[in-house]
């Protein structure tokens, strides 16, 4: 038995879920970046606006540079709510006109010295965003560039970026969930032919060795072709086996018969009579063993593979009695058949059933019945019962289970096959083997056959 592997469905879902999870993680990361950029764009406008307003408010009075940050610039920055505000206005000589003197001014602004620009930074331990712009003074009394730096803590930006990211993440996760559910449905749908073919193979008649021919997706066709090739090989093998069994039976029986005949001839010489008698007994046993092996092979092979036909069990039993009870029995035996007047007909394999009946009768003759053998046939609710009763001591209860297994409990002079053959035939007909007694009537083996006993 091969090690159990995860189902195709599980594998596919796990792989798709992995891909979706990685994709969702990448998208959420991207959303965080976009959110941060969007927040920066939005708040940078406020920041630059405030810087420009402050720069606009720079004036020159009597050669003195006056910088008065207008309230509106602070109101603009206050729109972002919680954030702290720092600013610094520096005159062309680098002296701070007003604001926070420790706020850094970007150096090396070069020619575009009055172009507004934003950057990230830190001020007094807090992360800030800085906007910087310049005001070119062209007054006769004051020349140069006044630099305005406005910084704002990033709490509102981070909050906005987080909110944007959270919303995007919710969308991405919802979408991923939907995709996963859709994939699950799609996989179930795509794998349906596998289930269908499996069910069709399972429900196939075991005797049907015709090639399977289903409409199957391209991916499953090699699997069907391999199955058909296997069925073909199996059929060939079985035909070979049947031929071999038939040939072997014929080939072995013939020399055994000849051997027995030779012994019979030789036994007429009185001086070797005793030894020859033993040789004949051995040959008889061998002949019977071969017969039983064949019978066993027949029943085994036919079980479940041969189409059932209506069989008249009374007729079948009479023939079995004729074949199983030798005419030259060394003791007086009263063998009777009791059955209903009307024929008892069931769907059965006559050859298997006859082999079974013959084995039961043979068993009774060999190990039981000192003087009486009764074969009964009864119709039951769901089929029929064949009862073989003798006046012997029967099989001890503790040996009964063992007696039903092949070669498990050979009786003296027996092969250990008789009851197992009968049991197997009964099972193939949807029935079983039971024991009754021993009691006043003796001991009986009952073989049950189901009516519609298709196995």
């Amino acid at each position, binding site marked *: 038995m091969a090690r159990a592997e995860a189902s195709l469905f599980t594998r596919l879902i796990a792989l798709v879920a992995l891909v979706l999870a990685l994709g969702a993680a990448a998208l959420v990361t991207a959303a965080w970046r976009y959110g941060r950029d969007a927040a920066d764009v939005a708040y940078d406008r406020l920041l630059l606006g405030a810087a420009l307003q402050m720069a606009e408010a720079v004036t020159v009075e009597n050669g003195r540079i006056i910088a008065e940050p207008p309230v509106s610039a602070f109101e603009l920055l*206050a729109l972002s709510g919680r954030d702290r505000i720092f600013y610094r206005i520096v005159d062309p000589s680098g002296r701070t006109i*007003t604001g926070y003197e420790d706020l850094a001014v970007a150096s090396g602004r070069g020619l575009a010295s009055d172009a507004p620009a934003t950057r990230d930074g830190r001020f007094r331990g807090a992360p800030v965003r800085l906007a910087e712009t310049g005001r070119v003074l062209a007054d006769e009394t004051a020349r140069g560039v006044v630099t305005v730096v406005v910084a704002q803590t990033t709490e509102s930006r981070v909050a906005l970026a987080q909110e944007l990211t959270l919303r995007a993440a919710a969308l991405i996760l919802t979408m991923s969930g939907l995709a996963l559910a859709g994939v699950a449905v799609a996989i179930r749908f795509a794998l349906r032919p596998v289930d269908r073919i499996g069910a069709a193979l399972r429900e196939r008649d075991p005797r049907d060795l015709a090639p399977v021919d289903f409409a199957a997706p391209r991916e499953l066709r090699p699997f069907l072709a391999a199955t058909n090739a296997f069925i073909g090989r199996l059929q060939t093998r079985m035909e070979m086996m049947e031929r071999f069994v038939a040939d072997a039976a014929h080939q072995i029986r013939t020399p055994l018969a000849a051997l027995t005949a030779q012994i019979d001839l030789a036994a007429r010489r009185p001086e070797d009579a005793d030894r020859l008698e033993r040789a004949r007994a051995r040959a008889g046993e061998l002949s019977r063993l071969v017969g039983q092996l064949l019978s066993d092979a027949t029943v085994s092979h036919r079980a479940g593979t041969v189409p059932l036909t209506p069989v008249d069990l009374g007729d079948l039993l009479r023939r079995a009695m004729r074949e199983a009870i030798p005419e030259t029995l060394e003791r007086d035996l009263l063998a009777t058949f009791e059955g209903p007047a009307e024929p008892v007909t069931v769907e059965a394999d006559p050859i298997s059933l006859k082999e079974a009946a013959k084995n039961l009768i043979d068993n009774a003759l060999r190990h039981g019945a000192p003087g009486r053998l009764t074969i009964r046939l009864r119709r039951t609710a769901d089929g029929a019962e064949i009862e073989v009763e003798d006046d012997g001591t029967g099989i001890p209860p503790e040996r009964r289970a063992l007696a039903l297994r092949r070669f498990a409990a050979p009786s003296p002079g027996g092969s250990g096959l008789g009851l197992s053959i009968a049991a197997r035939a009964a099972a193939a007909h949807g029935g079983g083997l039971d024991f009754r007694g021993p009691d006043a009537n003796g001991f009986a083996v009952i073989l049950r056959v189901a009516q519609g006993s298709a196995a």
Partner: protein
Amino acid sequence: MRRALLGVALALAATGMGARAAETTRYPALGAERGALAIHAATDREAMDPLIRDFQTLYPALRVDFVEYVTTELFDAAVAACAEGRGLGDVLLSSSVDQLVKLANDGCAQPRRSPETAAAPGWANWRDEVFGFTYEPVAIVYNRSLVPPQDRPRSRLDLIDLLRLKPETYRGRVGTYDIRVSGVGFLFAFHDARQTASTYGRLLESLGRAQAVVRCCTGEILDAIESGRLLIGYNLLASYAWARVRAGADLGVVLPSDYTLALSRGAMIPANPANPAAAGAFLDYLLSPQGRAVAAEEAFFFRTDGAAPEGGDPMLREGSARLIGIGPALLAVQDSAQRDRFVAEWSRTMVEMWTP
């Protein structure tokens, strides 16, 4: 001559400050003392008294030390403490909310989040660090027995006209804040200038021409009006004036009909307070319905919805209130260049120009 007079004015202001600076009042714990709360405030102790006593009934094991400052001095002390990495007491109270906003902006505040702070309106909460716990209109106050009814101004224009028509009567008898030393005075003047630049300019000119008396604090001006040395006071906290009316002073309180500034007194926990738990509890108390009820009935008299105290005559007109909200826009008030120029302009008009 001009310089000399200015020098005298500054010296006067300095004396006033010196007398009031860092005056500590101790409220012993009602029960066995298990901790102390230090309140550093630029707020009249008389106004805070009922709130502190009510707070102590809730926390009987707390001793409360109330240290009283002038606004600017409180700010300077808080900045110095912040630079050293310690908190100035446990709770800062100031009518000059722009200074508290500046402190919070510079990282000198500790946030407080609680159901009470969450319930505070947006204009009374910045960063969960600076909270407004009162609603105090800014009023014109006059002496009822000395100012005849026809002279009582209802608006700024009335005041300008009065000073123009009766210069002899009112010269040297009108008082207002000295914005050079009073943070809250500067805050009011700055907002006046923002409201209507022309009215502000004319008013300043009128006050200067009338040789208005400038003082550090509402209390001093109210004392002077009550005693009759001054007749009219401009830009005074109506809450303090109303406290005196309730105490029997013969004062009239006018909320100007053109517009009325309204201030929400600020409370803040400085960074690294000595007793953060007590600081948070006191802040929550100030913002709680109980604290606000006590403030409205016994301390500051006006409710956040602008409703007048009982028996109040001149009331807020619909839409005339201009609330000074607590937020980063107040940082503009704290800009040094702006402040220097504004104060210089004010000084020139109020003190120097009309000095003979």
